[in-house]
């Protein structure tokens, strides 16, 4: 499809996930897409899930409170607190699952985003540190019960294994 970089690595002992991705767009657009709720809502939820932001205050100490909504209308809330912002270079946040009344489910995870541009291609590097690896399954935001895509993978994997 394209030659843009995408890598995803998990360092289990360090409890850290590293994600690198290039985008065919200038840095200022990519920065907006990662930091403005109305844009985040357009891409952060893998279809058929949708993302709905209740409020966002993009400043240090500010928060974004949003839900991943399943096709059946099930809501999984997440609260993100911005801990550091260097415009168009870097931002950090603390991510935690929450109930609909904004009570966080701790421990959460620390997210670090770095942005750089070269020849019109913008690279984003994301580091996610999770205190508890047992909660790794929740790193994918609200997919506690619902991740149909992954379950399809599991079913295929198991089907392959059971044929052997």
């Amino acid at each position, binding site marked *: 499809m394209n030659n843009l970089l*995408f890598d*995803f690595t998990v360092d289990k002992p360090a409890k850290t*996930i590293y994600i690198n991705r290039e985008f065919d*767009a200038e840095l200022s657009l990519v920065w907006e897409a990662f930091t403005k709720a109305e844009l985040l809502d*357009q891409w952060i939820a*893998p279809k058929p899930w949708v993302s709905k932001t209740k409020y966002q205050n993009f400043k240090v100490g500010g928060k974004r409170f949003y839900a991943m909504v399943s096709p059946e209308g099930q809501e999984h809330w997440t609260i993100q607190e911005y801990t550091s912002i260097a415009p168009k270079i870097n931002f950090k946040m603390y991510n935690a699952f929450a109930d609909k009344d904004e009570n966080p489910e701790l421990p959460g995870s620390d997210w670090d985003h770095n942005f750089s541009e070269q020849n019109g291609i913008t690279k984003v590097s994301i580091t996610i540190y999770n205190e508890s690896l047992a909660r790794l399954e929740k790193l994918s935001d609200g997919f506690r019960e619902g991740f149909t895509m992954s379950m399809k*993978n599991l079913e295929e994997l198991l089907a392959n294994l059971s044929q052997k």
Partner: protein
Amino acid sequence: MRRDIFQAIADPTRRAIITLIALQAMTPNAIAENFHTTRQSVSKHLRILTECELVKQEQQGREIYYSLEIKKMKEIDKWLEQFRQIWETRFNQLDKVLLTMKKKKK
């Protein structure tokens, strides 16, 4: 009673248990803490998973730890593949959003 592997994954709670213990061995109590259900219900799911040979038990002192039968599930890395795919889907969606933004700017 003979059970098959599809029975193991037919239930959402059992799928969630598999996800949990894929990462580390856990006691039934520790597993139960992750669910809004009774300890008895979790024990029942663990029994079914054990009968399907998807999980194994190990006695450590007074506690029994449940862990994933890796041979049956292949590597944990395969399991992690799902997270990679979620991100891949996300970023493909973002590519489209960026394209729309670029067009609007012109």
